[in-house]
């Protein structure tokens, strides 16, 4: 099973949690990002995600490698869904196991921040009176996986 993937079907959270669990793991943190109905007072009807799939999966794997380097002993599995998603659907799942909980929490938060910076995935918000592709890249992503 793939530890880093872009999928167009509902995300099975347990699958990713199971992928990182092993006998030396004392903690597993699982983050799920969901479609939010209200953003700054504007009601979203649904979202549509697009991705450059092969590069996005490669970037997820690079982020996983960064995490393993920063927090030795962690294991990582991540998936992002694309296509049309309804309110409360899971858009992203990040599962991190580690021998102790602190690293699992810290590495998990690192992963979502990096996904938002470098993984080629795009979100379109569809409202009652319009729609827009969202995007606010902070900086030109650096070559390779350097953070």
């Amino acid at each position, binding site marked *: 099973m793939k530890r880093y993937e872009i999928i167009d079907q509902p995300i099975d959270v347990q699958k990713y949690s199971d992928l990182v669990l092993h006998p030396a793991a004392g903690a597993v943190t699982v983050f799920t990002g969901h479609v939010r109905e209200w953003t700054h007072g504007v009601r979203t009807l649904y979202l549509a995600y697009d991705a450059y799939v092969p590069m996005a999966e490669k970037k997820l794997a690079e982020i996983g490698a960064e995490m393993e380097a920063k927090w030795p002993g962690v294991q990582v599995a991540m998936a992002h869904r694309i296509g049309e998603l309804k309110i409360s659907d899971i858009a992203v799942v990040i599962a991190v196991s580690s021998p102790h909980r602190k690293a699992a929490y810290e590495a998990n938060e690192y992963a979502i921040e990096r996904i938002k910076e470098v993984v080629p995935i*795009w979100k379109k918000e569809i409202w009652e009176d319009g729609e827009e592709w969202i995007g606010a890249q902070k900086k030109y992503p650096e070559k390779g996986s350097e953070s």
Partner: protein
Amino acid sequence: MITVHYFARLRELTGKGEESLDRAPMTVEELLNWAEETYPGFGKETIHVAVNEEYALKDDVIQAGDVCAFIPPVSGG
């Protein structure tokens, strides 16, 4: 030939997901300039280019056979 991919807003602007260009070799900056001229409103100031699935710098050279993608500001998560 160079293959170029369009995503998200750019897919809608150009009306296509990909096309082939017979312009190799060219730099990333030249590719962005070409796109801006060909598709008014492209917005090259905010768009990065990936060459063979890796972010490229503006003076990197694109060769025949390379696969490029225009990467507008990302918004995953």
